[in-house]
């Protein structure tokens, strides 16, 4: 029981991070039908932006309040990651729009390799650590020496994820920007006939996806304390798995899928074999694609027209 509760907490934390990244996959797929293979690396870039910003704030500027530093890091990372993804879309994907369907996807794979290598060359191939932050924990249960703990950083991760998802949901459902975004997702040509600037809306989608990935990046850095150039790949593919499991194109599905993948991975590690945790997560991708390609909350292909 105590192990279960502990793993539940850990799984939800990890799942929040996957969910935030998964939204970027699902939104881009929804609007231009492309699997953005570079999205995991955009997430990785955001961890480095956060790392650099955090070190600058604490060592050069000398901010001592960890929460103030975190808040600034979050805003800075969201801004610069969004800018990066905006530029990527302009350079690597937009010129290929109207080309054959696979072209932007191949371009995205190239962009993924470019980003990972650029960070490797400019930041070095080793793990970049930051000093541990927010180390306090709350002991929830104490059972003969096995303590079930809820770390403050886990609380921060889950609460900020929930708050940002709320804001994001409001943006998509209730504002005219979000409405334009959904319109382009459902019928790009009609949206243009109604005066919506489709290119701008697609850019906006990349910007939002990157900003949410940057939130995940900051949380990831805080949780694990290291950034590494290759850390875009595995979390990226897991978040993609989460998007597919939830039903690609579905925003609630991405969040649900993220939480499920986080839980599956953590429980598998606790009860079966930690070496095979990635195998467990990726098997979900294969199983979903074979038996339930529309995902948990995805919509069926047939629609009345």
């Amino acid at each position, binding site marked *: 029981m105590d192990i279960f509760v502990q793993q539940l907490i850990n799984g939800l934390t990890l799942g929040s991070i996957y969910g935030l990244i998964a939204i970027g996959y699902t939104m881009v797929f929804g609007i231009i039908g492309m699997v953005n293979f570079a999205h995991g690396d955009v997430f990785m870039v955001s961890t480095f932006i956060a790392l650099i910003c955090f070190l600058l704030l604490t060592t050069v500027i000398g901010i001592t309040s960890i929460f103030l530093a975190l808040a600034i890091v979050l805003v800075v990372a969201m801004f610069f990651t969004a800018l990066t993804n905006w530029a990527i879309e302009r350079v690597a994907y937009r010129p290929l729009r109207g080309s054959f369907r696979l072209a932007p996807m191949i371009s995205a794979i190239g962009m993924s390799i470019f980003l990972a290598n650029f960070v490797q060359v400019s930041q070095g191939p080793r793990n970049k650590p930051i000093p541990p932050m927010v180390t306090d924990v709350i002991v929830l249960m104490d059972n003969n020496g096995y303590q079930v703990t809820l770390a403050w950083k886990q609380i921060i991760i889950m609460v900020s994820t929930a708050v940002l998802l709320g804001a994001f949901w409001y943006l998509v459902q209730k504002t005219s920007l979000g409405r334009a975004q959904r319109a382009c997702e459902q019928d790009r040509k*009609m949206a*243009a*006939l109604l005066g919506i600037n489709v290119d701008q809306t697609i850019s906006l989608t990349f910007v939002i996806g990157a900003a949410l990935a940057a939130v995940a990046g900051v949380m990831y850095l805080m949780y694990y304390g290291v950034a590494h150039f290759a850390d875009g790949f595995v979390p990226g593919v897991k978040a993609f798995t989460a998007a597919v499991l939830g039903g690609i194109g579905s925003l609630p599905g991405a969040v649900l899928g993220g939480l499920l993948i986080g839980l599956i991975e953590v429980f598998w590690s606790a009860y079966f074999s930690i070496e095979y945790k990635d195998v467990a997560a990726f098997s979900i991708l294969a199983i979903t694609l074979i038996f339930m390609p529309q995902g948990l909350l995805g919509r069926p292909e047939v629609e009345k*027209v």
Partner: protein
Amino acid sequence: MSASDTLAPDPAAASQPAGSGAVPMLSVRGVKTFYGNIMALKGVDVDVYQGEIVTLIGSNGAGKSTLMMTIFGQPRAREGAVIYEGRDITKVPTHEIAQLRIAQSPEGRRIFPRMTVFENLQMGAAVDGFAHFDDDLRKVFDLFPRLKERINQRGGTLSGGEQQMLAIGRALMSRPRLLMLDEPSLGLAPLIVKLIFDAIRELNRSEGLTVFLVEQNAFHALKLAHRGYVLVNGAVTLSGSGHELLERPEVRAAYLEGGKH
């Protein structure tokens, strides 16, 4: 227009309504549109004057919808020009053309299926900046009370007739100066066709709205319109007032006999 058989030396000028000015609101000049290597429009000339209802009739595959979409640059005309209110819009981006207050209810209606009726109408009002949203919404609901009953229903769950009303309502929400309707009667029950055509006539009469209407239902369209064009295989072969075209034997033979429903 060498092949076309016109009823007057200058068909547009001959039958345009009085007081509408000499310069057409929309002028399509020698437009050629291609799908790949196939020429879908072979040099089409069409004029629409302020305050008119103009209809374009023709059979399946004649290029009617292609002309409607070419005016919006989807696809772009490879040759010729589209002039709207004195401005050449042939190469203007689609969304900027919409911002000039040309609204289209396109072929296949293209309702956003996973948005509610209300959200679909909001999408229409986007170019107007929501300044007159409440007024315009009331007008659309007066015109099509059925939409009001369905306000929170998703577009994809509406019946064909309701979707048609929504497509027209959505176009009206943008406060268009030129309303383009692509086959508003397609697949609808005669009662609903009458409702929609009455609505078009009423908008034209009470608000002076200029309407460019594409129809297969030639009888109703020609009775409604001030002027009409007949499109055959991507070229205009006949033009004239609605009544004149209704009397033409070749129009009767091709589009009306057996089709008067």
